[in-house]
């Protein structure tokens, strides 16, 4: 047990101190802070850059109401009544005096129409803004032409009332489903990234020890099984540290930006009244999923003798995670599809799919429990098998990077 802790903390601390880990963590934290403050950052750069648009109003009536309405929705676009000819206007735009030129006129039905000219039409934000203002204008004018009152007009545009009600007992209400979808979506991403990232790290760690041949000394002092699990836990601890840091920073920076917002952080994401069971499932499936893939990665890592071969070796594993993730994403919209149900019992997909189903549907308790049991059994099986392969694999050197080596590694540990 003593050696176990020694390896665990050695793995944890030495990884924690590596430059690459520190740099990735800092970059990720910076990105999180950046994303949380995105609107602030954009505002900062756009502060005093009001875009000026020249308007040639051939009707003589439209300019005033349009510029008023535009002011109400977007203060960053300024309209200026331009008195020159169209040619002069175009020239002014080309010279950069104005961002664009808007020509307003009436069509044969006495309704507004417009032409927008700019140096390039790659920037779609301004024209679409102008278009929507004009659209409103046109709707109002058309309505008054056929003598519709604003109330009548309002009625036309009122959205239809459409409620969904689940008849099954315990079934989630629409609101709950939306909340669950948000949370499940976020957590699926967390599980996906954690598994890919940290399983990779473990495989890499094992391969490094093997390729530097320090492994032979290690296994002569500590049993391979102990080593394998100490390493898995060490990296697990590392992953929790990194994620806790990122979540904490993310939480505070978003909270700061939303301090004025009522309800705070969790409401904002629709996590207001998520059942505790969903959070619990997320945690359980995250941990089990990590262990499953970490064990797999450790034993795959033990099979290669050069670090260059590691990617090739763990690609099938990564594919499996990606496949699970894809099915889960598909399942978010159709959680009851039988395909999703069946695949949620395949151990490598269980962490993501069973969690998604547990979060989205009201499953009978035995289903997630069965999933957890299958997952646990798979982990134990993989650990026992993996530890044997690991024990032989770490003694095997040479050009080994095929799955035939699993057999060879097992042969090494056999007693006859």
């Amino acid at each position, binding site marked *: 047990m003593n050696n176990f802790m*020694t390896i665990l903390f050695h793995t944890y601390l030495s990884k924690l101190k590596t430059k690459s880990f520190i740099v990735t963590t800092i970059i990720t934290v910076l990105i999180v802070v950046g994303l949380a403050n995105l609107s602030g950052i954009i505002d900062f750069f756009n502060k005093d850059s009001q875009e000026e648009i020249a308007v040639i109003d051939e009707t003589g009536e439209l300019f005033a109401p349009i510029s008023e309405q535009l002011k109400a929705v977007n203060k960053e676009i300024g309209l200026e009544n331009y008195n020159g000819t169209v040619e002069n206007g175009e020239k002014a735009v080309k010279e950069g005096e104005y961002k664009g030129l808007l020509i307003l006129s009436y069509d044969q039905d006495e309704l507004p129409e417009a032409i927008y000219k700019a140096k390039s039409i790659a920037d779609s934000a301004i024209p679409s803004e102008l278009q929507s203002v004009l659209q409103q204008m046109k709707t109002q004018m058309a309505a008054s032409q056929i003598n519709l009152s604003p109330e009548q007009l309002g009625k036309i545009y009122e959205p239809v009332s459409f409620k969904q009600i689940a008849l099954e007992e315990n079934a989630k209400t629409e609101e709950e489903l939306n909340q669950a979808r948000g949370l499940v979506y976020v957590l699926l991403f967390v599980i996906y990234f954690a598994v890919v990232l940290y399983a990779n790290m473990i495989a890499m760690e094992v391969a490094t020890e093997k390729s530097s041949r320090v492994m032979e000394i290690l296994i002569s002092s*500590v049993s391979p099984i102990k080593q394998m699990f100490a390493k898995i836990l060490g990296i697990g601890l590392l992953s929790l540290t990194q994620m806790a840091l990122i979540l904490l920073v993310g939480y505070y920076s978003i909270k700061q930006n939303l301090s004025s917002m009522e309800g705070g952080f969790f409401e904002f994401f629709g996590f207001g009244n998520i059942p505790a069971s969903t959070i619990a499932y997320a945690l359980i499936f995250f941990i089990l999923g990590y262990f499953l893939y970490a064990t797999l990665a450790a034993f795959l890592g033990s099979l290669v003798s050069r670090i260059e071969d590691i990617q090739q070796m763990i690609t099938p594993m990564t594919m499996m995670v990606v496949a699970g993730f894809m099915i889960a994403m598909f399942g978010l919209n159709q959680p009851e599809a039988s395909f999703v149900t069946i695949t949620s019992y395949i151990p490598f997909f269980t962490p993501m799919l069973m969690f998604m189903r547990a979060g989205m549907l009201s499953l009978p308790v035995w289903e997630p429990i069965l999933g957890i049991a299958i997952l646990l059994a798979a982990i134990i099986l993989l650990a026992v098998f993996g530890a044997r392969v690991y024990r032989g694999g770490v003694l095997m050197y040479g050009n080994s990077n095929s799955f035939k080596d699993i057999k060879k590694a097992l042969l090494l540990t056999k007693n006859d």
Partner: protein
Amino acid sequence: MSLLLDHVTKRFGKFMAVDDLSLAIPESEMFGFLGANGAGKTTTFRMILGLLDPSEGKITWNGKRIDYSTSPQIGYLPEERGLYPKLKIKDQIVYLAKLRGMAKQDSLKELVYWLERFKVPEYENKKVEELSKGNQQKIQFITAVIHKPKLLILDEPFSGLDPVNVEQMKEAVLELKESGTTIVFSSHRMEHVEELCEYLCIMQKGRPVVHGSLKEIKRSFGKKNLVIHADYDLSFLANSHGVIKARQTAEGIHLQIAGEKTAEDIFKEIAEKGFVRKFVLEEPSLHDIFIEKAGASYE
């Protein structure tokens, strides 16, 4: 109280790596393992360390099987050198010693002693990848002995070292032996084994072809070497009765003969021919025995 290998056999599938090896290595002795590449030396060591299980037979150390509970008493220098390339010497020695049950303060103290002894005290805070291969070897040796093991296994300890460092290392090994450590080591270099070991074993394709004490092995080999230097042509001796092998040298001839009797005959024969500047009857060298027993496959 010793290391016992009792009819140990190891098969990998159909391949016989070690075949019926029985050895008794007394305590505080230095035991040499000789053998061509692939003779089964490393496999034997791995079995002694408990990294591999023998297919048949058993290995005991002081009557007990070697496993992870005895690991603080065992030191191992693997054939392929292995250290963490990116870790400081200090950190890695402390870590590896800790895994052998040694406290940090003790291992740091010992490390200073050993680094000074190998005349490289400035390496404490360097990374392994910054050191030359020979110096990495010294660090590897320190990891094997820092926890004062009772049983020390050295797989090719002198390979890749310059003569000065070989001497330093030999001295250290001898000192450990004096202090009561049982040492098993393998080597390609006959002179090292001849110089250091009282007992030895020559392996050939997994089978021990010769084993016992150095003196006995030499005596029972029977054949001796005869070196003669003279000013006239000695090549006719190659066909004399009792001569097994003959090799012309610049100053005379080098013969392998069946026994002392042959030397007497030859002495009489050439005494009549003229003056002989050198006539030496030598014990066979381990090299001769090895070549003969382990076959011409050796290097």
